[in-house]
C-alpha cells in the first residue's frame, strides 16, 4: 500500500521539479496579491500591521486555489489518470499521494516564503513563527479539500472558476482559524488552541478527503 503512495508521490515531485512553473507560479501569485494590498488600501505601517494576518492568509488561500486547476488536469489529458484508477492498489493511497505532492509543491513553499511577505507588511516579529506554522498545517488541509474539487471538475472544459465556487465555502473554517492564530500571536495571546483546531481539521480531512477524491476521480473518468 505504501509502495503505490511513494511511486505516485515521487513521480509527481519529479514532474514538478522538471516543470518548475507548477510551483513557481503560485509563489509569484502569492507575492503579487500581497503587494496589491498596500497599493490598493494604504501603505501606512501600523495599518498594514493590523491587516497583515488576514491579508497573508487570504493571499495564501488564493494562491492555493489557483494551483488546484492543474492538480489532475495533465494526468487526465494524457490518460495516466485512468491507468492509475485501473491499478489494483488502493485508490485512497493514490489520492493521498496526489494531495501530498500538491502540498509539497505549493503549500510548503508558500509557508516558507510567508516570512518575507510578513516583513513587507510589517507583521510584528513575534507572530512570524505562528504564521509559518499555521500556514504549514492550514495549507495541507487546503490541498486535501481542494483536491476534491479539482477531482470533481477535472473532466470539464471550463473547470477553473467552478473549482473556486466549490471550494471557497469549504476553505472558510481554515481561513478563520489560521488568520485568528496569527492575530492572537500579534496580540501576544496564546495560540496553541488555534493551532490545535487547525490540526484537528487537518486530521479530519486527512482521513476523509482521500475517499472523496478517489470517488470524484472515478466519476470524472467515467465519460
Amino acid at each position, binding site marked *: 500500500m505504501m509502495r503505490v503512495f511513494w511511486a505516485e508521490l515521487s*513521480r509527481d515531485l519529479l514532474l514538478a521539479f522538471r516543470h518548475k512553473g507548477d510551483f513557481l507560479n503560485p509563489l509569484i501569485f502569492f507575492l503579487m496579491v500581497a503587494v496589491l494590498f498596500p497599493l490598493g488600501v494604504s501603505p501606512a505601517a501600523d495599518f498594514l500591521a493590523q491587516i497583515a494576518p488576514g491579508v497573508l492568509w487570504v493571499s495564501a488561500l488564493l494562491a492555493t486555489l489557483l494551483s488546484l486547476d492543474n492538480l489532475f488536469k495533465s494526468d487526465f489529458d494524457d490518460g*495516466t489518470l485512468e491507468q492509475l*484508477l*485501473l491499478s489494483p*492498489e488502493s485508490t485512497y493511497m493514490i489520492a493521498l499521494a496526489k494531495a501530498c505532492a500538491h502540498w509539497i509543491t505549493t503549500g510548503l513553499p508558500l509557508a516558507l516564503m510567508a516570512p518575507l511577505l510578513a516583513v513587507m507588511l510589517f507583521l510584528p516579529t513575534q507572530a512570524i513563527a505562528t504564521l509559518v506554522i499555521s500556514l504549514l498545517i492550514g495549507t495541507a488541509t487546503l490541498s486535501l479539500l481542494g483536491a476534491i474539487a479539482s477531482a470533481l471538475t477535472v473532466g470539464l472544459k471550463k473547470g477553473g472558476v467552478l473549482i473556486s465556487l466549490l471550494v471557497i465555502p469549504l476553505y472558510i473554517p481554515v481561513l478563520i482559524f489560521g488568520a485568528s492564530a496569527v492575530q492572537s500571536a500579534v496580540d501576544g495571546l496564546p495560540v496553541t488552541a488555534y493551532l490545535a483546531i487547525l490540526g484537528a481539521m487537518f486530521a479530519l480531512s486527512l482521513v476523509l478527503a482521500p475517499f472523496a477524491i478517489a470517488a470524484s476521480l472515478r466519476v470524472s*473518468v467515467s465519460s
Partner: protein
Amino acid sequence: MLVQCQPLKEIYCTGWGVAAPLLEVKDLYCERDDKVLFENLSFQLQQGQILHLGGSNGSGKTSLLRILCGLYHDFEGQIEYFGLRLADELENYHSSLLYFGHQVSVKLGLTALENLTWYARIQPQLDPSLISKALSEVGLEGYEQVLCQNLSAGQRRRVNLARLYMQKSSAIGHSLWILDEPFTAIDKQGVQELEQHISAFAASGGTVILTTHQQLALSSKIQRLNLDDWGTK
C-alpha cells in the same frame, strides 16, 4: 465476501472441467446522447481467446471497452468475471488487466524508463526486471533515458505498448489485455511484431480484446464481434 468468492473461483478455473468463461457479458445495454449504442449484447470470452471488436466510428467500441475495464458505469446488464459479478471483483480483475486507451498514457515529462518504472509500481502484474528487454522489443533500445516529449508520436505509443512485454508470466491464464486501437501510429514492421506477440500471449493462455481498423494477419482462435449489428442506426 472475498473469503466466499475465492474457493468458487478455484472451482471454476481449475477443477471439474466446467470452466466459467473469463468474461461473460449478459444483455448489455448502453446509450449515449439518446442513441442506443448496443442492446441485448451478450457474449462470452474464454481464456486464450482473442476477440476482435469491429464496427464503424461511433458504434460504441470504446464505450464497450471502457465498460469492460470497469471505468464506465452508465449501462444496464451484467458482466461476470469467472462467474462472479465484475463490480464485486474489481480488485482481482484489475490486478490481471492491462488496458490501452486512445490516449498515449505516458508522461511526456518523464523518460521511457521512468514511465515504465512507474507503471510497474502501480500495476503489480508488470515485472520491473523486464523493462529494458521490453523497450528493446518495441524498438526503443537506446532511448531509455530520453524524455518522452522528445520522442515521435509512434515512439510514445511504443513506450506504452512496452507494457505488453512486461507481463508477468505467473498468472497468465487470468490475464486480460484490452487494447483500443493498439496499432495507431505504429509502422508496418511494428504492427507485425505486435500481432505476433499478441497471438503468442493468447497461445500461452492469455486473453485479448482489441479494436482496430487494420486487417489482421492473426489467425489463431480469433472471435469477431461487430457492434454495428447491435445498436440502432
